[in-house]
């Protein structure tokens, strides 16, 4: 299988601290992979590094990130612009602040459609909104008029419009109720099946990952400690994977 993305021995430092330590993993074409781990273990940092969105004091000390045979760490800003959006896109973890405050939702989604180069951008936007269960009327709204979950869904709609070849979703369903979560995950799944995109699905919640990804990476304190079938995590011999899996199981039971 051809890899859409491969991260090779990536180390990331800040202020003399090692935040990511020799992280390596691959994402095959059309593959959906989960990335789980406790809070603060470095999941979002890995996502930022892959999208080239690190800023000082964070810096990459060593390693390579290969996208289509090219090391993205050598990209110029112009090369980056060419791949961002249509090729690789990230749904950020903090939907509350991610949208431009002074712009209505409509133009922000249309902008994505413009970048995606779709023909009927208006219809594409409306369809994406429909897919994430949002009313058309919110195109006239400013972000502050939306709830946290609605903003989250706008971001997912943006991903649906852009249809990137690689999508990184950083906890895209936190803050949503179970029903909406289910709807959104299925529309995400549909989009990915349609476009054949690869997905890196970041979460600390094993239940959600199980709905999306066949294989899962487990991260602990800046290292990838295990990669297995998602279903096999329960049987994992690895201590950190086990505790994550156990926590998920007890949550399911208590719900």
């Amino acid at each position: 299988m051809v890899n859409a993305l491969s991260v090779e021995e990536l180390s990331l430092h800040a202020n003399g601290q090692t935040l990511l330590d020799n992280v390596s993993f691959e994402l095959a074409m059309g593959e959906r992979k989960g990335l789980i781990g406790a809070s603060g273990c470095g999941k979002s940092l890995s996502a930022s590094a892959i999208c080239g969105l690190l800023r000082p004091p964070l810096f990459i000390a060593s390693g390579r990130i290969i996208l289509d045979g090219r090391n993205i760490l050598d990209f110029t800003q112009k090369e980056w612009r060419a791949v961002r959006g249509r090729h690789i896109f990230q749904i950020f973890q903090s939907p509350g602040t991610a949208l431009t405050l002074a712009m209505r939702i409509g133009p922000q989604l249309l902008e994505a459609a413009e970048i995606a180069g779709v023909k009927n951008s208006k219809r594409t936007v409306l369809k994406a909104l429909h897919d994430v269960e949002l009313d058309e009327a919110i195109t006239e709204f400013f972000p502050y008029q939306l709830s946290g979950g609605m903003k989250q869904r706008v971001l997912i709609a943006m991903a649906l419009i852009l249809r990137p070849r690689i999508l990184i979703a950083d906890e895209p369903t936190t803050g949503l109720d179970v029903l909406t979560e289910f709807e959104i995950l299925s529309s995400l799944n549909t989009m990915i099946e349609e476009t054949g995109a690869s997905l890196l699905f970041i979460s600390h919640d094993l239940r959600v990952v199980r709905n999306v990804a066949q294989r899962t990476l487990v991260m602990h304190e800046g290292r990838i400690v295990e990669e297995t079938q998602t279903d096999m995590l329960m049987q994992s011999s690895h201590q950190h994977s086990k505790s994550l899996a156990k926590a998920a199981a007890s949550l399911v039971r208590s719900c």
Partner: protein
Amino acid sequence: MNNLSAKKLNSVYQFILILKKHSGLSIGIFILFAFAFISLSPLFITYIEPNKMDLLARLSPPSNEHILGTDHLGRDVLSRFVAAIPVSLGAALFAMMVILAIALPWGLVAGIIGGRVDAIMMRMADIIMAFPTLIFALAIIGFMGASLEASIIGVAAAWWPSNARMIRALVLAAKEREFVRAARLAGASHLRIIFRHIMPQILPPLTVIISLETASVLLALSSLSFLGIGAQPPTPEWGAMLNEARPFFTQALHMLLVPGLAVTLAVLGLNLVGEGLRHILDQREPYKW
């Protein structure tokens, strides 16, 4: 004991590291020290008496006798430049102290008490801020009569409200910090909160404000002297020296360059220190596009 001096050495070393990284700040500090040093130099070197006229040597260009030349009355420009340092910079520092003496308590009280007191105090500051600053200073000088003292008072009267506002903003930001809130909830007194919690927090940004504002006060005061309504001749003061140079500066360029460069460098020094400190305090980094 040994430990202590090692600690001291360490902090000196760290200070040097900071200076190395922030070249603007080190240039600014160097300029200010140079001015301080030169202003003290009359203690060791004897200059020509700054007000001694030599009508035979009027407007003479730089020479061995007069390193920076003489002015239209044959006075030595170098010694007038040196004698002007305590006047020009001293006036600016004094004016800044007066401004702080009003603005600091004003901003602290308004910020900490808040509510109606805050509204009234800020409204009063707003009334003065509604006038263009230099024009308000001009009006005060107009009412007191032109003199260096009047210009200091005028500038202080016009400059304190904006400073009070900035200090209030710092206080408000400090007040919202977690531990200050906790202290307030625990019933600590206003004074205790001010000195134990708020002052240490606003001190670094306040240093930035002070050095930048002193720069602008120095500019204003020398402008007023230049207009002939600040320091009066024959007081050596850079703005006043430039004012006296006006009719002659095509014949004696040094009369234009020396006091002008003096003001510019002093203001530059203060601005560089302020900007440098601000840069150190502001740690956020933008995303690259």
